[in-house]
């Protein structure tokens, strides 16, 4: 209760405080891969922002995830150029290869498959991004090998351990 009363929107977000909420959520997500409920509570306690407001912001922006994700995030670009170059087939092939639906995570938590609006590499369409690596001019046939490489790398890492 008391923390609610402390909440003074204008003061809190005025210059110098810089609208801390979104950067805080971004940091929480960077640390854990998604926003854990505890982190939301922490932000609430530190800044006195109502939980409902935090939750509202966290669910508004597509960047924020409230569920855990796989180790590798595959983002399939569905921008205009990629759409006309066959992004649908790319998503479908990936769904087949990974045996998940877009938005889902594989059982071994190795991959999460997402679609995004535009990655801004339109002249290389169709494009996917795996973590920070971009793959362009793809054909559905290329995907098996790309995924296999990631699986191999993971297996090598496990073996090393």
């Amino acid at each position, binding site marked *: 209760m008391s923390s609610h009363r402390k909440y003074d929107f*204008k003061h809190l*977000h*005025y*210059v110098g405080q*810089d*609208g*801390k*909420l*979104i*950067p805080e*959520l*971004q940091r929480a997500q960077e640390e854990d891969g998604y926003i854990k409920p505890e982190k939301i509570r922490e932000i609430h306690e530190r800044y006195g922002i109502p939980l409902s*407001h935090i939750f*509202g*912001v966290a669910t*508004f*922006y*597509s*960047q*924020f995830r409230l569920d855990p994700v796989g180790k590798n995030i595959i983002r399939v670009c*569905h*921008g*205009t*150029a990629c*759409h*006309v*170059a066959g992004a649908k*087939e790319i998503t479908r092939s990936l769904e087949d290869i990974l045996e998940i639906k877009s938005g889902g995570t594989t059982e071994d938590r190795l991959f999460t498959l997402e679609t*995004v*609006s*535009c*990655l*801004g*590499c*339109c*002249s*290389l*369409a169709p*494009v996917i991004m795996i973590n*920070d690596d*971009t*793959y*362009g001019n793809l054909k*559905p046939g290329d995907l098996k090998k790309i995924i296999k490489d990631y699986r191999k790398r993971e297996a090598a890492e496990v073996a090393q351990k």
Partner: protein
Amino acid sequence: MKIIVGLGTCGIAAGAEETYRELLGKLGDANGRIALEKTGCIGMCYREPLVEVRRDDGRCEHYGNVTKDRVARLLDEVVQNGEAIDDWLVWTSDRTGSETAYLDRQQRIVLRNCGTINPEKIEDYLAAGGYDALKKVLSDADPEAVINLVIESGLRGRGGAGFLTGMKWRFTRLAQGDRKFVICNADEGDPGAFMDRSVLEGDPHAVLEGMAIAGFAIGANDGYIYVRAEYPKAIERLTIAIAEAEERGLLGTNILGTGFDFHVKLKEGAGAFVCGEETALIASIEGKRGMPRVRPPFPATKGLWENPTNINNVETFANVPWIVAHGPEAYNCLGTRNSKGTKVFAMAGKIRRGGLVEVPMGISIAEIVHEICGGIKDDKKFKAVQLGGPSGGCIPAELQDTLIDYESINKTGAIMGSGGLVVMDETTCMVDVARFFLDFTQRESCGKCTFCRVGTKRMLEVLTRITESEGREGDIELLERLADLVKNNSLCGLGQTAPNPVLTTIKYFRSEYEAHINNKKCPAHSCQALLTYTITDACNGCMVCGRACPSGAITGEKKQMHVIDQSKCIQCDECYRACRFHAIERV
């Protein structure tokens, strides 16, 4: 001698980083004699990775598609022997090379430094005359004169709406408030637009300088750049640029000893298309849900934390230092009567040369598509261009002589938008394109206005059923009615323009809608549910398609031609993808 590798996002995606590392490794023993540099994107995305060789006598050669395995030959022939590899040559300072036409027709103001300077070194920008405009403005110390100059240049907002930039500055200058803000809108969310990303990655200081000039003109000491989190490279380079500029006293407190302070902060967007709308963007910086509000009051009087705020887009700011340095006449002599200067277009889709082109306003669509971008890929037929992203519309090939300026484009029903230009050929289904954009706007609607939230959803449902062979008579009229309601009952640009792709495709491609609804056919052979699959005599009876078919519709003996039972076919496309002999036909 200098070797310069283009390391924009598109170059990196094409393997430029491997090329750079390979060069770095191989040049190890030659260091001192040959300098290896990075640069941003020159705009020839279709020939990435690009490597420039700048010789000591000033001549330069650009080589295209220089992947890692081509580095050895490049070093051998070009660097060691001083010869040129003609097959790889895209452009030289003597105006030869395969892509000369691409660059020659362009007039590069915004992209003046992109692909020529190292964006991570302020020295490069300074050597190219960077920050001279800011110095001039600060030493003249006449903010009103700056505003007049920008008005006189005729520069209009490049984010889409096309409002006179100088006027916007004047409103903010005249607004009451002790604290004012400058915001750079770098939330480039239009699918198909990437010019802002390229400018931020290739020439971040130009944007910073433009912002500082704007800050001085309107009396603001704080600037924000609201940049998409999906552009990690742009964020990285901006961060470096801000630090470098501050170190040299070109940003921060007491700039160049004139007493003028201007601090720039980066704000990462969190993925919401609607935040490209200025009031939603402001809400997002304030840490709220990015939802637009009623205007007036406009941000110029009540913006960020209720203070007067001036918002311009990346390309607009990048124009400003050039205009100040060269004078308004040099700018307003380009373009048409009401649209001055140049515009950058992000070219993508079914064209031979995709990338960034900067052309003077007043050029025709046909010139851009055919002369600069080399026409349609694979000799297909040019069908339409989509201009302005989800808020824009499709302009058919018949209107390709339309001139590029704000008014002419608006007349077609499309908008200039931020300048994403996606080219479509005969295999693109226009109903599907409309459905694609509605799917986007429907997802990105913030939900504040009922007509935008629900109306776009209903429109999407109708479009989806048309593409899935379940279109009904009257659907076109229903779409038009819904479009009208959504347009007129939404608060912000997102809802007001969301129906544009539908309206323009109905206007110019009505027969395609009718073919989908009445004849259950997709003239572009793109909508899967409307396709008929047949097996041609190219079939050699390998039986792969039969095994791939999930509904048991394909039968045939080994080494005999197979047939598809149309009553069982579910148009899943599996056989088409499985066949290695192109024996499956989709009509």
